[in-house]
C-alpha cells in the first residue's frame, strides 16, 4: 500500500538533525514529511516529570527496585539521578524519553560492551542531550590527512563557519569569546558564570600552565530570552532532561519544530519506523521510504524527491545496511565496503575528583546546568606530546557537596540533621573526553540471526577503544591529578589500574564523508556519492571524532546540506 502524498523531501528522524533538516528545507519552500519512530511529545504538556518533587516519584526518582531485583541493597539512593539525565536510571513515573534496552535489543561482542543510549520519541535525544556546543576547527578537519588515520575530511572550517553562525544564532548558545584558534568563537549570549573556586582555579591554572585555559562552557541553555519564539532564559533548575516548558534549552520542540511548522509545509508522521529507503534502478535515485506503523504493524510507502537521513548515527547506518536492492546488495550507496565501518565514540567514562580545602565562606545559589571546560592543550599551540596522537578536553567544575555528604556520613540524631543542612566541602571534578582514531575494524553490522520486535535484524556494534585512546586518557588523568594537587586539592577518586573506557553517548561514523567515492559514502555536502538525492547529515557522516562534543557540528552540516540540496533541486540536478 502506498499513500498518495508525494513530498519534496522526506526527513527520517526528528532529533537534533532531523529538526534542523525540517526547518531549513521547509523555510526554503519544500514540502516536507518528517518521520519519527516514537510517540508524539508535545512541548510542555508532555514533559510529565518536569515539575515533580522527589517525593512525587514512586521510587523517589530512582530506578524501579523491581527492575534490578537485587534486594534492598540494590536500590539506588542518589540525587545524581534527579535531573533525569541518566539513561540507566530513567524516571519511570510516566512514559520516559529513554529507550529501555530490553525493548530494543542489540548485539555486542563479549569483549566490547557498548551502552547505546537512545530516545525513541518525538524530538529524540534533543530532549535529553548534554547541550554542549563546541565548534570544530582546522586542527580537526586536517587531522586525518596529516597523521594518516581515517580519510581526509572533504570540508574545512571555512566551509562550516557561516553555518555554525547560523545555528548558534538560532538555537541560542551561551558562552564566552576567548580567541582560541582550535576552539573558534561563535555567536554567543553571555556565558554562565564560574563560581568562586572555579575562578580561583582558573587564575592559578592559567598562570602555571601557559597555553591552557579554563573557560565557561558553551551551552545551548540560553542566558537571554527569545521572546519572539516563546523561549525563556534558563531558570537554573538543572532538570533539563525531564523537558523544559521554558524552552530555555535547544530541543526540536522548543526551537526547530515550531519554525518548520510555521511554514505550513511540514507533515509530521510519528509512531512510524522507516524500514528501508527505496531505490529506483531506472532513475538511480531513491524514490521514497517504506515505513512500519509501530502500533499496528502496517507498512506504507511515502515518496519523496530527496531524502534526509537523520535517524542518529547507528540507526542511520543500519537503515542503509537494511536498504538492499539489486543495485546495492550490501546496503544503499555501499559501493566501497565503507558502510558501517569507522564507527567512533569519545573515549570517556573516567573522572578525577579532588577535595578542595578552605573557601568555607564562599557559596552560590541556583542549580547551574553545566560544568565548564579546559579545551585541548595537547599536540596544539606549541605542545608536542609524541606519546600519542591528537588530544582531549576536560569538562571541569567545582561544587560544594549537597545534603548527601553530611547525611550519609557518621552521626545520628540532631547531629545528623545539622550536618545534612550544612554546605559540604568543595570538590573539583574532572570529566575526561578523548578523541578516538578512526579504525575500519570498529564496525556496525546487521546480526545475521537476532531480530527485534518489528522483525528487523538487530544491530551488532563492535567498537573497541585502542592504544592511542588509552594513552590519551592516561595523560588526561595524570594531568588532572597534577593540576588538582598543584592547586592544593587532595585527590579522593581517580580511575584505578586497568580502568574501563566507556563511550560518551557521542557515537558517530559509519557513513563517513570523504573526497573519494572508493573510500567514503558521502561527499562534502553530506550527499551520497552513489545516490545523489540522499543526504545523511547526522553523526554517522563524521570522518573523525575530534575531541569536542559533536552535536553543534551535526546541526551546521545539516543546515549547509539542506541549503545545497534545495539549490540542486531548483537547478534540476536532483
Amino acid at each position, binding site marked *: 500500500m502506498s499513500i498518495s502524498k508525494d513530498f519534496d523531501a522526506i526527513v527520517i528522524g526528528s532529533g537534533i538533525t532531523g529538526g534542523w533538516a525540517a526547518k531549513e528545507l521547509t523555510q526554503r519552500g519544500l514540502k516536507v514529511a518528517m518521520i519519527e519512530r516514537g510517540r508524539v511529545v508535545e512541548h510542555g504538556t508532555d514533559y510529565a516529570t518536569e515539575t515533580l518533587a*522527589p517525593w512525587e516519584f514512586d521510587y523517589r526518582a530512582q530506578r524501579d527496585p523491581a527492575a534490578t531485583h537485587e534486594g534492598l*541493597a540494590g536500590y539506588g539512593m542518589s540525587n545524581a539521578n534527579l535531573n533525569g539525565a541518566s539513561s540507566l536510571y530513567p524516571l519511570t513515573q510516566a512514559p520516559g524519553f529513554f529507550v529501555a534496552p530490553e525493548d530494543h535489543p542489540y548485539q555486542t561482542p563479549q569483549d566490547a560492551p557498548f551502552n547505546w543510549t537512545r530516545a525513541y520519541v518525538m524530538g529524540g535525544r534533543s530532549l535529553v542531550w548534554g547541550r554542549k556546543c563546541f565548534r570544530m576547527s582546522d586542527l580537526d578537519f586536517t587531522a586525518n590527512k596529516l597523521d594518516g588515520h581515517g580519510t581526509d575530511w572533504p570540508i574545512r572550517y571555512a566551509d562550516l563557519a557561516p553555518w555554525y553562525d547560523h545555528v548558534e544564532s538560532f538555537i541560542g548558545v551561551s558562552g564566552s569569546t576567548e580567541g582560541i584558534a582550535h576552539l573558534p568563537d561563535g555567536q554567543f549570549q553571555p556565558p554562565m558564570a564560574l563560581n568562586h573556586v572555579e575562578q580561583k582555579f582558573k587564575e592559578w591554572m592559567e598562570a602555571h600552565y601557559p597555553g591552557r585555559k579554563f573557560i565557561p562552557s558553551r551551552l545551548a541553555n540560553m542566558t537571554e530570552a527569545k521572546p519572539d519564539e516563546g523561549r525563556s532564559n534558563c531558570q537554573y533548575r538543572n532538570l533539563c532532561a525531564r523537558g523544559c516548558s521554558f524552552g530555555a534549552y535547544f530541543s526540536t520542540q522548543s526551537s526547530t519544530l515550531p519554525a518548520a511548522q510555521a511554514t505550513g509545509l511540514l507533515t509530521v508522521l510519528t509512531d512510524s519506523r522507516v524500514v528501508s529507503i527505496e531505490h529506483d534502478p531506472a532513475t538511480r535515485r531513491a524514490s521514497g521510504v517504506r515505513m512500519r506503523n509501530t502500533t499496528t504493524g502496517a507498512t506504507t510507502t511515502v515518496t519523496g524527491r530527496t531524502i534526509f537521513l537523520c535517524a542518529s548515527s547507528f540507526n542511520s547506518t543500519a537503515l542503509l545496511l537494511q536498504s538492499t536492492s539489486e543495485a546495492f546488495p550490501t546496503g544503499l550507496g555501499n559501493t566501497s565496503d565503507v558502510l558501517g565501518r569507522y564507527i567512533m565514540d569519545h573515549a570517556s567514562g573516567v573522572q578525577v575528583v579532588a577535595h578542595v580545602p578552605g573557601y568555607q565562606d564562599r557559596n552560590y*545559589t*541556583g542549580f547551574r546546568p553545566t560544568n565548564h571546560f579546559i579545551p585541548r592543550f595537547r599536540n596544539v599551540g606549541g605542545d608536542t606530546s609524541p606519546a600519542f596522537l591528537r588530544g582531549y578536553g576536560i569538562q571541569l*567544575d567545582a561544587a560544594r557537596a549537597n*545534603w548527601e555528604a553530611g547525611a550519609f556520613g557518621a552521626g545520628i540524631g540532631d547531629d545528623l540533621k545539622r550536618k545534612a543542612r550544612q554546605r559540604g566541602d568543595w570538590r573539583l*571534578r574532572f570529566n575526561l573526553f578523548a578523541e578516538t582514531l578512526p579504525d575500519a575494524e570498529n564496525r556496525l553490522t546487521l546480526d545475521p540471526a537476532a531480530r527485534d520486535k518489528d522483525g528487523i535484524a538487530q544491530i551488532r556494534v563492535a567498537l573497541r577503544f585502542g592504544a592511542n585512546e588509552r594513552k590519551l586518557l592516561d595523560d588526561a588523568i595524570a594531568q588532572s591529578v597534577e593540576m588538582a594537587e598543584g592547586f592544593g586539592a587532595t585527590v579522593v577518586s581517580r580511575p584505578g589500574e586497568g580502568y574501563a573506557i566507556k563511550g560518551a553517548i557521542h557515537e558517530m561514523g559509519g557513513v563517513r564523508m570523504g573526497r573519494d567515492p572508493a573510500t567514503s559514502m558521502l561527499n562534502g555536502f553530506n550527499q551520497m556519492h552513489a545516490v545523489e538525492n540522499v543526504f545523511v547529515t547526522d553523526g554517522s557522516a563524521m570522518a573523525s571524532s575530534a575531541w569536542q562534543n559533536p552535536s553543534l557540528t551535526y546541526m551546521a552540516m545539516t543546515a549547509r546540506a539542506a541549503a545545497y540540496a534545495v539549490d540542486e533541486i531548483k537547478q534540476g540536478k536532483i
Partner: protein
Amino acid sequence: MDRRLFLVSGLFAASLSLSGARAAWAAPAPAASALTAPQMRFLSAFCDTIIPATDTPGALAAGVPAFIDRIAVRASDEAQIAALRTSIDGLERVLDTAAGRPFAAAPAPVRHTVLAQVDAASMLGRKDCRVPATSADDADGATYRLLKAITVWGFYTSEAGGSQDLRFELVPGGYAPDIELAADWRNYCNETVLGQ
C-alpha cells in the same frame, strides 16, 4: 509500649494508607509486607532514633518505616526477604543486648546512646553509609549501614524532610556564582550535583 511509640505506630498506620493511595497512580501496590510486625516496631524505633523529631519533623512523621518496607517488597524475592529478616533480627539482638532491654521499648535517650555507639563503630573509617557491603564486612555493621542509608534517603526525599527540614526550590530563576555563605543556610533537597 511507651506513649511515644504508641503515637508512632498511629503515624505509621497513617503513612501506610498514604503510600497506598500514591501507589494507585503508577506502581503495583505491595503484595505484602517484607517485615514482620515486631520487626516493623523495631524499624520504627530505629528510624526515630536515626532521625528524631526536633524543631523539624523526624523520620516517623515522614513515613520512613513504611517507605523502607515498600521498597524492600518491590526489590526483593522471597529469599531476599528472608535474608533481610535474618539481618534485621541480628542487628536487633545486638541493640537489645546493648540497651539491656528490647531496643524498641527503651526510652529515647537510651536508644540514642546505644545507636550512637553502633554508628561510631560501623562508620569508623567510612564517609558514606551507602557504600555497598562486601563479604569481608561485619554482618551487623553492614545491616546497620544499609538501614541507616535507606532511613536517611527516605527522610530527605520525603516532603517533610525535603521541604520542612531541608528546602525545596523548583525554579531558582537565576544563578548567583559567588556569595557569602549565610549563617542560617539550609541545603536544598533537590540540588543535583553534576558528574557524580
